[in-house]
């Protein structure tokens, strides 16, 4: 018996027959629907970010021009002109190269802000929560969802009865007699069916990857795609092993199907839901409302104690002398209030970070219970939709805020301006993304585990298929 014989059978039963065509068409259509949604969303984000950046840059240039004029002329036409408190720099989280492959948590977190003396860590990210919560709560359709949730289901539906169907009807005995065994036939048929399913998915996904998104470098995009596809295939390998093993170990078609569907529901839905709930129960996030309360207490204290705070701040900056220019007091007051709020909220913010870290660690352990969680986390992080990327951006933006505050603070409190050189020395915000290597390294342990489990299942299934026919028929 040759592989060609099996392929000839599968060509007629599956590949060029209704089941295979329906499966492939459904996959391609869903991939295209997911890609359409993903690409539209990325394009809209990029467009809005570009408009935001252009507007921010224009006002920053205007601010610089005003300072340049003051330095040149030696006097300002208005005391409000070119005040350091009014430096406002854009900080943008651009979509990742493969952002259209996974929305992940990207639809929840902010991607733009302005770094300025008016901001504090609490109000640095505001006014982004406009999205309708109804579709948010339902979740979106993206390629990662299709790979993690739908592909196993299609694999199961396509191949659960390759052996059981033959066995239930007695064909397996005829196959065994004619071929001498059933292992090649079963193995090749499983491989062909699942191969067709994954070929349809990979091809459609490759087409989606080749079509560029507005901001992405095609080279980076394809590199990320290859990594993404590699992870998806490891995950597919896991399900291939599950299907092969269930087909060999369980006798009846409906038992094979029920066991595989139950495993799918457990891995894809139950384990992540229970894992997430446990992580939240064990390491609950500190109250955001408490965070807010601390910030407000800080603001009130700062307003009350402006004189003391000013004196205290200037004591740390003896080089500064308070200008007698008629600048509104609230520049300095607001700056000091923000600084005070920052001081008071830092422990809460650290608490947030710590609890997030603890939850992330627990989830990263719990993911080993569910290959779907491993795959989802790895695929989402390669596509740049993970929480870590959003947090990384927020941390970098906060760091940029602190950096700006350190550079303009003394001048703001002393009601002075900074020099043009000092302004030019302020570093503009540019998000530093993780490299693909970093991403793969951080997912390496669970992926190796997943590959080992997949390999183990496949090896064991092959071993069981080589068992005496008595155990298979």
């Amino acid at each position, binding site marked *: 018996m040759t592989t060609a*014989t099996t392929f000839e*059978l599968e060509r007629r*039963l599956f590949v060029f027959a209704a089941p295979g065509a329906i499966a492939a068409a459904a996959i391609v259509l869903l991939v295209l629907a997911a890609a359409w949604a993903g690409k539209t969303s990325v394009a809209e984000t990029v467009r809005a970010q570009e408009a935001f950046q252009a507007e921010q840059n224009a006002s920053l240039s205007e601010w610089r021009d005003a300072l340049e004029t003051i330095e040149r002329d030696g006097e300002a036409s208005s005391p409000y002109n070119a005040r350091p408190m009014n430096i406002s720099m854009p900080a943008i989280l651009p979509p990742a190269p493969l952002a259209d492959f996974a929305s992940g948590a990207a639809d929840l977190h902010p991607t733009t802000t302005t770094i300025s003396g008016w901001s504090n860590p609490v109000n640095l990210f505001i006014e982004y929560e406009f999205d309708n919560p109804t579709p948010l709560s339902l979740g979106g359709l993206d390629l990662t969802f299709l790979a993690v949730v739908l592909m196993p289901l299609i694999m199961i539906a396509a191949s659960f009865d390759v052996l059981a169907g033959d066995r239930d009807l*007695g064909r397996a005995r*005829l196959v*065994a007699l004619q071929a*001498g065994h059933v292992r090649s036939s079963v193995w090749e048929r499983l491989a062909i069916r699942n191969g067709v399913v994954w070929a349809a998915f990979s091809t459609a996904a490759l087409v989606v990857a080749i079509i560029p998104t507005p901001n992405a470098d095609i080279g980076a995009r394809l590199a990320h795609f290859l990594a993404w596809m590699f992870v998806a295939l490891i995950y597919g390998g896991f399900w291939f092993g599950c299907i092969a093993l269930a087909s060999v170990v369980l006798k009846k078609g409906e038992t094979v199907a029920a066991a595989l569907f139950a495993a799918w529901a457990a891995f894809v839905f139950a384990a992540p839901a229970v894992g997430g709930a446990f992580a939240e129960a064990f390491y609950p996030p500190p109250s955001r409302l408490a965070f807010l309360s601390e910030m407000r207490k800080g603001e009130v204290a700062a307003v009350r104690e402006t004189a003391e705070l000013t004196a205290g701040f200037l004591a740390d900056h003896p080089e500064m002398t308070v200008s007698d220019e008629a600048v509104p007091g609230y520049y300095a007051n607001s700056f000091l209030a923000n600084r005070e709020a920052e001081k008071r909220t830092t422990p809460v913010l650290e608490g947030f970070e710590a609890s997030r870290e603890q939850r992330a660690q627990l989830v990263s352990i719990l993911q080993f219970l569910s290959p779907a969680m491993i795959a989802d986390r790895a695929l989402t992080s390669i596509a740049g939709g993970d929480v870590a990327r959003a947090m990384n951006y927020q941390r970098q933006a906060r760091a940029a805020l602190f950096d700006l505050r350190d550079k303009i603070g003394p001048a703001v409190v002393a009601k002075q301006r900074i020099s043009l050189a000092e302004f030019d020395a302020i570093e503009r915000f540019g998000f530093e993304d993780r490299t693909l290597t970093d991403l793969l390294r951080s997912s390496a342990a669970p992926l190796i585990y997943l590959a080992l489990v997949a390999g183990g299942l496949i090896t064991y299934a092959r071993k069981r298929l080589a068992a005496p026919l*008595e155990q298979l028929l």
Partner: protein
Amino acid sequence: MLAAKQLTRTFGDLKALDHLDLNVQAGEAVCLLGANGAGKTTTINLFLGFLEPSAGAAFVDGMEVAKHPLETKKRLAYIPEQVALYPQLSGVENLDYFLRLSGVKKSASELSDMLIAAGLPADAINKRASNYSKGMRQKVGVAIALAKEAGALLLDEPLSGLDPSAANDLCAVLRRLRDDGRAILMATHDVFRAKEIGTRIGIMKSGRLIDTLDAAALDAGEIERVYLAHMHEAGGAPNGVNAPGEEDKGAAA
């Protein structure tokens, strides 16, 4: 061609086949008669290598089945009670696939001729097997068996459920094969067909071959009387208690 030496198979405490000694020479047809659970299907499964013996051995063309599972299968053809085909494929496509599995490649016209020779109507050979009657599926099974040109043919109640005409056709084919020098081992409940096809008739009860009759020496009525007499003898498992793997053919029929 087919030989069993002290061939034994147990399932837990149940002895499905108990020290069977049997020889089926080329040109000979042995029909095994017995109640459900007597060990007929177990015997066939042991020759096919679908079950492993607990003791003793089955031989095909001098080779021990357990030691040469692939070689012995090449020398065997098999027609089960229900020939299961791929319903999405036509008769000719099914035949082509099953022959290819055993390494036999035939042209489309050869395959069609084989099916027609096995008795399948010419207008049915390119129709999907999902539309076939049981008799038509059996004929595809016969075609598969014939095309393999195996020295020995194992049949597990192949006549069960066939209409008289289809059963007659199959009997004629089997007689021809026997006369052509094939060794035939057939499990059946049908005393009269057993007499028609068999050169010898073995009567099995509770896993043991308790009698062997010369089919030519007795008429069908006499064979039936002997068979019933054996069935009413004390001892052995009650009828209807099947060994695992031994299907309840009565219920299925």
